[in-house]
């Protein structure tokens, strides 16, 4: 809030392709969480639990990456949860008539389409991202229910493959999410489009005068977010084995939290894929730990909020010192 902090903060960025936001303190924090978990719970290091962890991070991870891209432009995408629901129910509805991969691709494309619309409204019409995506959150959720009020459970067991297949000890869905992060990291740090997106969040006018098409890149960012949400929706439906139009409420909040825990600035221009991935890890670890300790559900919520505040306090202290 204060200018002082703001000024110092801006010195931490994706710098010339090197990602320096993943501070030592942040890494230590994650290591600490893992160490505490491993030492205090017999279950934590079991194969089952680790696989669990890997599976749990898929949805939040995919959404967080898409959210990061949007946040970098200085925007926000509140509609991802609804897109998850829509893409899932659409895919499940289509598998009766279409080959599964085709249905799944159409599911992802529905996210791409919604993202495109969000992006155009924000960039070409100059509307505030918060309200545009809030409105599309409502509209897309409504459309999911209009498409099917009741959940759809495809019969064909092949529908479950994407969500439940394992590549050795690692779920295929986790690998997909990791691949998105890896490709996303390269995109944001090494391609002109990625750098433009980061730059737009820093100062859109400067970028425009550098001859870069700002609206197109902003639209691209929302489209990427939509694609990630579409993919997350398909994977989720496949994992659960049934698609519900009501799924995904408040998913956007976890995605945003992951970005910010990873040090992204909601004003745009600052944030990194690695640190966002760290943010996803922190969130998933918190949930897992509270579960393993058998903390009662409502107290879990109380603690989760407090831990998130503690984590960003640690993050911030470190940043100001650095």
């Amino acid at each position: 809030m204060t200018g002082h902090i703001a000024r110092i903060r801006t010195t931490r960025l994706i710098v010339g392709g090197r990602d320096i936001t993943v501070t030592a303190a942040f890494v230590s924090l994650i290591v600490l969480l893992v160490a505490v978990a491993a030492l205090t719970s017999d279950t934590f290091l079991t194969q089952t639990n680790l696989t669990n962890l890997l599976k749990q991070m898929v949805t939040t991870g995919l959404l967080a990456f898409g959210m990061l891209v949007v946040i970098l432009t200085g925007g926000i995408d509140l509609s991802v949860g609804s897109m998850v629901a829509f893409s899932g129910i659409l895919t499940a509805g289509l598998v009766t008539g279409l080959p599964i991969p085709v249905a799944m691709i159409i599911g992802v494309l529905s996210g791409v389409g919604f993202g495109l619309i969000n992006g155009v409204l924000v960039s070409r019409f100059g509307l505030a991202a918060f309200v545009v995506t809030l409105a599309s959150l409502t509209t897309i959720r409504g459309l999911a229910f209009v498409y099917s009020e009741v959940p759809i459970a495809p019969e064909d067991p092949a529908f479950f493959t994407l969500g439940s297949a394992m590549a050795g000890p690692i779920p295929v869905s986790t690998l997909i999410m990791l691949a998105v992060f890896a490709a996303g990291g390269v995109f944001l740090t090494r391609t002109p489009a990625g750098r433009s997106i980061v730059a737009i969040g820093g100062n859109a006018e400067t970028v425009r005068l550098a001859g870069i098409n700002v609206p197109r890149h902003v639209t691209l960012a929302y489209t990427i977010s939509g694609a990630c949400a579409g993919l997350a929706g398909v994977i989720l439906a496949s994992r659960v084995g049934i698609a519900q139009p009501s799924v995904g409420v408040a998913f956007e909040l976890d995605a945003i939290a992951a970005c910010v825990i990873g040090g992204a600035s909601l004003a745009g221009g600052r944030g990194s894929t690695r640190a966002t991935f760290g943010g996803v890890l922190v969130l998933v670890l918190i949930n897992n730990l509270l579960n393993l300790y058998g903390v009662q559900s409502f107290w879990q919520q109380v603690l989760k909020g407090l831990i998130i505040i503690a984590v960003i306090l640690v993050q911030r202290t470190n940043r100001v010192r650095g």
Partner: protein
Amino acid sequence: MSLELRGVRQSYGDVEVLHGVDLTGRPGEVLAVVGANGAGKSTLIRILAGAQRMTSGELRIDGERVDLRSPHDAHARGIRTVYQELSIVGGLSVTENLLMGAFPRRRGGLIDWPEAHRRARELLDSAGFGAIDPRVLAGRLSVARQQMVEIAKALAGEVKVLVLDEPSAVLAGSDLESLFALIRRLRERGVLVVYVSHRLAEVMELADSIVVIKDGLIIATTEPAKTSEAELIGLMAGRRLEQIYPARREPPAETRLEISGLSRRGEFEDISFELRAGEIVGLFGLVGSGRSEMARCVFGAEPATKGNGAYRSPAEAIAAGLALVTEDRKRSGLILGMTVLDNIALATMRENRRGPLIDAAGRRRRVTEMIDRLSIQPGRCATMPVGALSGGNQQKAVLAKWLLAGPRVLILDEPTRGVDMATRVDIYRMVDDLARQGLAVLLISSDLTEVLGATDRVLVMREGRLAGDLRSETTTEDEILAHAIGQAA
């Protein structure tokens, strides 16, 4: 009130930028501080303003040692500061900007707006800036007017020390005269005025004493009567500058840019001119005459309402070989949070690729070359956020970005604003070199000497219209000014 700095040191992280500065200012004195970009002037001023706590050293006011903990502290002691970077809140009225934190209140604690506007009016009048309406939104004023509001704001209440960091950088003509008159009045009232400027002519005219700061150390203390501009420049730069403006070039070749009848409603009208290869054309005008708007329009940053020759978008202009160094680097020239590297490479990202990826090594090489060529300080700044550079070096970074694009037509809007003399000379020389290689240059400037010295031809704008087209060799400063204010014979 006398002010004394003793052994002031300041570090940012591991880097010390002030290495023990001693400075004395007496009441009723205009103390000028001059120095190259990045010498540490603004840092010194932030310390005086209480906005930055010195790493070591002491500040004495009337002989008594004081510790300024906050800007509020300094304010309470009568030390007022106008910073180099504008800090107006655009969304508030001028009145609110002026009286922020000190509103007149009625019984019941509510702000008395009529009284507030009256006081604001008074403040502006007493500063000699009566042309500004206190009721309008500050964001609607031109940069020059905003700067005047900043100055007026510093005058509220009892002022003992007024610190001005490059106040004249955005002022010209009568505005500048008002400022000088104000400073002289304050001096008579016994106020100590600390004045930072790169315009040495002003310094010679105004100052009672001059300190020269170089690389964080005071290397000379003198008076206008005992020195000369050339000597000051030599001290600042650490070398002698033989000639400020390069010699004349060959006559210009083919036409590179042809503008005819260009208009944009409410801003400028019926502008026609052409730029030819190898030519440097100056564009002078009073603040608000519409020069910047016209340039932005030519570059496609703003649509024209009528006329030919302007581009439809910056992308199109760039593709045609244009480059525009805008006047407000903070708002439209730089991405302060990104690195110098990213900033300088911004306009050429697409050209320098290996497959779909940015050619990182090549990009770094090119940018480093440009940093060396323009001697952007500190020299190894490629991975620093550009916002951490001093003002003048930021300006060079903007220039570097556009030079990297290898333009055929270069439009420079106030490119030497806030740039020190030595660097200016470098910039003039560089622009001259480029012109010799066939570049066409449009140099927008509010500095008459510069307009006359660095160009082949001078266009003059007045109230949105072209009011003169003069040959630099034959015209005079007076003639240009006469065209600008509409009193040409």
